[in-house]
């Protein structure tokens, strides 16, 4: 049964991987036409879409910034508390 699980998992992983592996060498971060450009949008729609995009992007930028501010403080507090917990556990063990 163990081998059957490994085989099924391996096949699933290969299927999931196919589009990425087949494109790994054809894409460069700095060149190529894979990034969609504003010039490809019809000129009569471009202005409206750009305005809407700015609104949406601003909302997401602000939301991500606030979430990261909260997460940063939370992670610091949690790490200090957990570090102290292991200090206490170790102290009890040694005693």
């Amino acid at each position, binding site marked *: 049964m163990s081998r059957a699980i490994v085989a099924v*998992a391996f096949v699933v992983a290969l299927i999931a991987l196919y589009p990425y592996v087949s494109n790994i060498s054809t*894409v460069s971060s700095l060149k190529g036409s894979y990034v969609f450009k504003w010039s490809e*949008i019809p000129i009569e729609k471009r202005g409206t879409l750009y305005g809407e995009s700015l609104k949406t992007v601003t909302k997401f930028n602000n939301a991500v910034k606030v979430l990261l*501010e909260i997460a940063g403080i939370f992670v610091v507090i949690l790490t200090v*508390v957990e570090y102290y917990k292991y200090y206490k556990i170790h102290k009890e063990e040694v005693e």
Partner: protein
Amino acid sequence: MMLKRFSWHQRLAHFVGSVSGMMLLITGLPIMFPEHLGWVFGIFGGSTVTMFLHRVFAVILIFSFAYFGTYFVLERIVRGRGDSNIKNFGLSAEFISEVVAGAVRDILWTLGLRRERPKFGKYDWIMVSDIYLLPVLAFIEIITGTIMWFPRSFDFVTSNPGLFFVVRTIHAGVAFFLLLFVLAHAGILHLTPGNFPINMSIFSGKISRRKAEVEHEKWVEVAEEVEGEEKKSSSKLCYVFGAITIVNLIALAYVPFAMRNEWLAGLRVSGDGIVTFALGLGVVTLIVYVIASVIAFVKGIKS
């Protein structure tokens, strides 16, 4: 006396997932913070090579996510939960309330507001949080990364190119949180007294009975005994490295406060000494962790 803590597949999943994940952070964060981490491009031979490597490690992470995700779900269905305390895939209200209650009691004990430390099974509340949070964050990164890799395959991007930048902001934001996560995770589980310099249980698959009796009391009675010798460590250096990690996390927690909303360019940070220090130390630490993980994994196989 040693106990079998993790299976071969769990150890391999941790190793492949963590190394590929940390390499993705090392090669990806310089794009979000080019002013502060531009030197990383130099290490790998330029931005084009670095971005190619980013995709190579993304492929490894996706393989790891798909393979181990499928494996663990099928294993649980076929073999049941074994010695794990995670019931019903962790989705039942009973289990969630158990985890929350355990977290509250554990924190109260740590702060001296409760006499007895709560008893935990194989995975305590913070491990359960790690087990569920990390795949969710990895999945968000895989989805947003895929959209940025193949933007022309997604209608919502081709009909409005501005949404590409929303996806990029989410990808970068989660990556920054993952940097905090990795540093906190390693600081808590490896750099603490009794664990420093490295907690080998995830690499060797074994834990000493003595340690398990203190940290996972409820699990000990169902755990399998295995051969092996316990290695005790009591170096005071753990406090130095613990302090460095906490200073690094405090400095990193400051970074979002220094971020500016620059519209389609996303969240940007100007040249700030604290930000440069925080990100530089964070990435150097990740490089050290990648090397340490490889050495520990090889040692774990031999043990």
